[in-house]
């Protein structure tokens, strides 16, 4: 029984590997390699709601986690409307080449991940995912998971919480949802091999 499972597993992996080799071969031999590795953005449809995953802030928009949470079309529409504002805000929070002085006045009350984690300007801060959506007619609450390469060369993941409010057709940062950020995350490999991260304090509780 166990051997049979292992053989089936091996067959599955070999098929996946074969598909990837074939895919790469077709990709590179077709002469369209450049086209496949250049991202000009796209329109994503989730439960009938359109999301403009396009520049500016293309990668921040890609980090919006819209499928893993069971969001209604109305909630998705709220996020779609707020996406350009949240993406711009996230980009400013990363602070890679952006002077903090350029941040809008309303965002000066935002906690700085760079200050909290004592990151110098050379440390590249990236966004992993934007998730844990809680949505009402007037506000959107969510978490942003950031990550950077620590001094020991390993990735450090950090989560903070935010509330945006609707104001004259715009969505603006209102306040943090909690007085403290969730902070550093502890990540483990799932049985499928993917990284799964939870806040350090929650990991200690377990």
């Amino acid at each position, binding site marked *: 029984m*166990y051997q049979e499972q*292992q053989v089936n*597993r*091996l067959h599955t*992996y*070999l098929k*996946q*590997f074969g598909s*990837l080799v074939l*895919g*790469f071969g077709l*990709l590179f031999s077709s002469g369209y*390699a*450049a*086209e*496949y*590795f*250049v*991202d*000009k*953005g*796209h329109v*994503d449809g989730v439960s009938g709601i359109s*999301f403009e*995953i396009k*520049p*500016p802030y*293309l*990668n921040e*928009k*890609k*980090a*919006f*986690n*819209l*499928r*893993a*949470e069971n969001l209604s079309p109305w909630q998705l529409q709220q996020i779609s409307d707020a996406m350009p504002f949240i993406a711009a805000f996230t980009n400013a929070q*990363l602070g*890679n*080449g952006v002077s903090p002085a350029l941040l809008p006045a309303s965002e000066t009350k935002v906690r700085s991940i760079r200050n909290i984690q004592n990151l110098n300007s050379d440390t*590249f801060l*990236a*966004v*992993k*995912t934007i*998730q844990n959506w809680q949505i009402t007619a007037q506000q959107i609450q969510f978490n942003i998971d950031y*990550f950077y*390469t620590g001094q020991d*060369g*390993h*990735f450090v993941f950090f989560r903070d919480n935010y509330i945006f409010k609707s104001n004259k057709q715009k969505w603006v940062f209102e306040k943090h949802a909690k007085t403290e950020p969730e902070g550093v995350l502890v990540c*483990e*490999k*799932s*049985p*499928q*091999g*993917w*990284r799964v991260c939870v806040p350090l304090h929650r990991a200690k509780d377990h």
Partner: protein
Amino acid sequence: MQECNIELTRQVHGGGFWDFLKFDSGTSNGAREDGNALGAGCGTVKSDAYVPDMMFGIDVSQACFQHDQSYSTCGFSRLTADTNLSNNILNDCKAQGGNALTCNVIAGVYGVGVTLFGASAFNQAQAQSCN
């Protein structure tokens, strides 16, 4: 002595022996399994389904996503971004329990990949971010 069944062992170590052969793009049915949009890992919206986010059982998606974001930062050096990708994969692979040979192979494959095919992506991303 405590006895561990195979499923318990998998939970602790994150996989079985055959995970060495595990390649996965992290997509299914045209969408990313982690819930993010296509391209939020290794590859773009068009190539996400073909470029592995997991190679030899090692999750390299974060190193790829950081590399994408480096390319999209106005004024960021392409050489630095590509070097960081290889170093991040190497370190992250070791942190996930990969052996030296496996980690060097994965870092080498992605490093060569971005060196050969990254120029147009870098130019496009810089043009978008510096406007």
